[in-house]
């Protein structure tokens, strides 16, 4: 039986039922993992890639997260929020590798990898496209991570779990980040933000 996962990953579930002796529970877990992989792998890879600044580390983080998920589920562990769990494991894996010294604060360099969205056809421009240097906005690593995880459609509760925060703190961090972005965009449009410049095409 072939299953199409997220339009990008195709796997054969039949290939997972290795050996007639595989218990039904194990097959169930592997199906659960296949389903999760199809839904979440691209987002985790994007997130880990931005955090790690290295595609190979991002791939390793993704594999590690799913393999640990398999192991914990095989151990009978119930995982209430698999998506948050997977993002958290991938994040900790990357941070461990980076030896940042702190498990709660990612380095600032990865913020530069925040993607710049395409110009919106509705408005003709994009506020984020206008900015050269997102780090100069003054977002803290936690604020930036909240924004990043939110763009991957994680719920506040899941973001809190990934970052080891209270759910209410996530809302506050997002609000503060939005405020900073709004101010920086305003300053950039007026040409008054030191170190933050409009792209030439946006200035025209």
């Amino acid at each position: 039986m072939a299953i199409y996962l997220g339009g990008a990953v195709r796997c054969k579930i039949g290939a997972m039922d290795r050996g007639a002796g595989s218990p039904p529970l194990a097959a169930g877990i592997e199906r659960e993992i296949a389903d999760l992989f199809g839904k979440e792998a691209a987002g985790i890879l994007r997130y880990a890639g931005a955090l790690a600044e290295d595609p190979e580390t991002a791939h390793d983080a993704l594999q590690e997260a799913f393999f640990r998920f398999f192991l914990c589920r095989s151990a009978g562990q119930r995982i209430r929020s698999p998506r948050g769990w997977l993002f958290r494991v991938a994040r900790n894996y990357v941070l461990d590798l980076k030896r940042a010294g702190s498990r709660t604060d990612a380095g600032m360099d990865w913020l530069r990898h925040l993607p710049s969205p395409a110009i919106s056809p509705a408005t003709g421009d994009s506020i984020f496209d206008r900015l050269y240097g997102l780090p100069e906005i003054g977002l803290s690593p936690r604020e930036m991570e909240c924004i990043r995880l939110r763009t991957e459609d994680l719920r506040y509760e899941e973001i809190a779990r990934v970052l080891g925060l209270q759910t209410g703190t996530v809302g506050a961090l997002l609000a503060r980040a939005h405020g900073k972005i709004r101010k920086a965009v305003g300053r950039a449009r007026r040409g008054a933000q030191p170190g933050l410049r409009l792209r030439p095409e946006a200035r025209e």
Partner: protein
Amino acid sequence: MHPKRAALIAYCDAETGADRGGRIARHLAECQECHERLRRIRGEKEELSAGAAAPVCDPARDWDAVLAAMAAWREGRDGGAASELTSRLQWQLEKYFGAPATRMLRRPGVRAEELLGEANAMMEAFLGPQAAEAVRDDCLRGLVWAGPAREATR
């Protein structure tokens, strides 16, 4: 009274409860200024999400690697990772619960994942979920699962 920015962002993200969401919705229906603030917040979110949705790379090869690692684990081709995990779990159990508790859990022939499950249940019961999670992460950190299979996918 206008809702705060955090409340509007939470409303935009469908993170407000029914009561609070209802109050904000009623206010938005009457307040053009807040309606405009919400429109801006939505626009920013959409722009960020559009950028984030750009595919970085294809995770297909990772799925092959995960499948290979799961199969290798089941078949005992784990390159010593199971044994190392068992040893780490034993060390943690001894640290928190003492040698007798560890001997009780580590029966002959018990698989590493069974021990992981039992250790995790004990840790959750006595130390709490967060501490159990931290201990489990420590046990799993840096273990090499079926390295050759993983390398083969590159």
